[in-house]
């Protein structure tokens, strides 16, 4: 794994990386990837594990179980930025300038 690979992973994962970070992670991740590559020596012609345990349908009656708006205030309180009308505030993602 080289520094370009790590820079690309940082972009995909939205992790900002300094040049020093990139160099350190390239070395460390390279060692780890080499170690985990050992599993490619195993022949595994079987279905993959998608759930840790048996998979079954889980049903419940089709009823509303929580009161409308009961959690609203406590959730808004936990948000970093809200409007007085009770909306989550996020930065603009569309602009007229472009």
């Amino acid at each position: 794994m080289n520094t370009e690979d790590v820079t690309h992973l940082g972009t995909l994962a939205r992790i900002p990386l300094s040049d020093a970070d990139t160099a350190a992670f390239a070395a460390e991740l390279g060692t780890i990837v080499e170690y985990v590559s050992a599993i490619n020596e195993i022949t595994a012609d079987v279905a993959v594990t998608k759930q840790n345990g048996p998979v079954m349908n889980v049903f419940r009656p089709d009823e509303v179980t929580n009161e409308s708006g009961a959690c609203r205030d406590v959730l808004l309180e936990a948000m970093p930025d809200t409007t007085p009308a009770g909306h989550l505030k996020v930065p603009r993602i569309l602009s007229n300038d472009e």
Partner: protein
Amino acid sequence: MTISSLVDAYTRGDTTPATYLKEVRECIAANDADIHAYLETYDDVTAPDTVDPDAPLSGVPLAIKNNILIAGRLATAASNVLKDYTATYDATIITRLKEAGALFVGATNLDEFAMGSSTENSAFGPTKNPVDPSRVPGGSSGGSAAAVAMGSVPAAIGTDTGGSIRQPASYCGLVGLKPTYGALSRYGLIAMGSSLDQAGTLTNSVADAKRLFTVMAGQDPHDATTITPDTYPAVETRDTYTIGVPRDFLASGVDDDVRDAFDRHIEALQETGHTVVDISLPLFAEGLAAYYIVMPAEVSSNLARYDGMRYGTRGDGDDLLAQYLSARDAFGPEVKRRILLGTYVLSAGYYDAYYAKAEAVRTLMRNELNERFAEVDLIVTPTTPTPAFRLGEVADPLSMYRQDIFTVPVNLTGVPAISLPLLSVERDGTTLPVGVQYIAPHAGEERLFDIGVRLHDTENQ
């Protein structure tokens, strides 16, 4: 102090919940400046005036790992990303512990987002091992283990994704239980690896582990992976057990003193009437490689939610991308490392070679384990290959990951396991504990409690 002896003392009138809670707080005040088991203590919690004889944990103080949500309390996961985040609801296991009468006295330290084996990855500073404060308590539930080992509480709750309860139990001389995947609801646990995570217990006795497990276990409509009593075939208890020792799995990487102590334990087992047989688990040696593909893949997915938009701390910057990057820069180095590794093994061109392959190996491991459990009742290993190491001693990530070699196959296959503090080794004039791990078939907790009570509680009371 055990929960059983505390409840007996309440019943006899030897002490009261208020008196004991005061002692708990005095113990924390006297010791925690050095040990740093707690991130926060809940000084507003008050003890009941009377003990409810029908509530199994009435007036029993517990410490809770800070990646488990308690409504109205900070739930930081020991991360700067969540340092100001207050939980908006109770985890299901917290609801059940409250209903049983438990008192929560504080939140315990952990490796950030439960990623680590030493508690050195906490954004708020490491926890030290009460047995020898120059050593780590293990991790990631190191704060919970240290809280019990320093005598502040009779028991604590942790979480275990790859060994994060059993390894600290081994290092601190405690009983550590990782239940069957699905036995305890994961609702309200801050997710790390969702197909691997289970909450569990750190206690001074096996009977206490059973008491807490019984309170917390059971189906939960909020977690569709919780199991019912019919999900798996019944696992009976027996007068004597056939116990398998996976010699090939133990062949390398185990400290010589740990191996000698483990071999003496196996000899003692045979003298008490159990049958010990050598078994082969060739794929378990590959478990750590599979784990370090599956776990980071799930980490990279689960931690994508921490973008500073809906909770946590909003990042700085003029546009959305700048704010994302700023918010996520608050992750510590180990969390970043695992997110990047997970992103790599899930990315186009590598998915089949790593992630899909690891999940197929996981199926093979499960099949291999089921075959062995047709021959033996229990499997035994040392919990950890070494005793507790010194703070700062293990710096290389891969060496740190190897601490979990005996514990991760248990999470990958979803079976239950318990670490019992039955071994000890000498290091620089200090006696250090090491755990023995017993592994049972799925839903075999009763069998683990049965062997554990006989090997541990009976000997220590």
